[in-house]
């Protein structure tokens, strides 16, 4: 059976490692406790130094 990687946590770090693993051609199971992805970052309105949005 195709073995994949398990990523626990759907915040910005979780998404990034899931994407990197997926782009490298591996199966990824992304587990998030909340109803959707984004974690703390989605609650942040502006990011310091570059002041662009987290949209």
């Amino acid at each position: 059976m195709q073995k994949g990687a398990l990523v626990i946590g759907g915040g910005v770090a979780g998404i990034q490692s899931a994407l990197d693993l997926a782009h490298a051609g591996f199966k990824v199971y992304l587990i998030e406790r909340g109803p959707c992805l984004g974690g703390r970052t989605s609650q942040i309105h502006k990011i310091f130094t570059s002041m662009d949005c987290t949209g």
Partner: protein
Amino acid sequence: MNSQKAKFEPKIVAFCCNWCSYPAADGAGVSRLQYPTNIRIIRVMCGGRVTPSLVLKAFELGADGVLVATCHFEDCHYMFGARKAADVHKITEQLTEMIGIEKDRLMLDWISSAEATKFAKVAQEFTATIKKLGPSPIKKQMTGDKYQITEDIK
């Protein structure tokens, strides 16, 4: 006269860049921010893609106002696209002003993808300014429609 002006519904072309102002317009939709219906959005990849000829073509065909909306300098997806848009816009501005189109009918603005409220505000204010200015001084010039082939030729 202003009853005619009140009834007057300007038609405004908005060139919106795919990475910043277009999603801002979508964001305005998601949060149901209302703005007048006169805006017609045309998606371009970057504000820097809008050539003077496109703006002049819009005015020639009868647009009452043209808005070019692109990213802020620091978060432009193509790093320098917004600066290019500003340089090209200088030429377009001079041409439109010289040909007799009021200065306020053409506007360049910077809207990042999170500034949905700003997009709605710009849409509202720009429509109001154009309504105040009244219809564009240029009558529609388009000659016969491009696609019917006149009878006698066939």
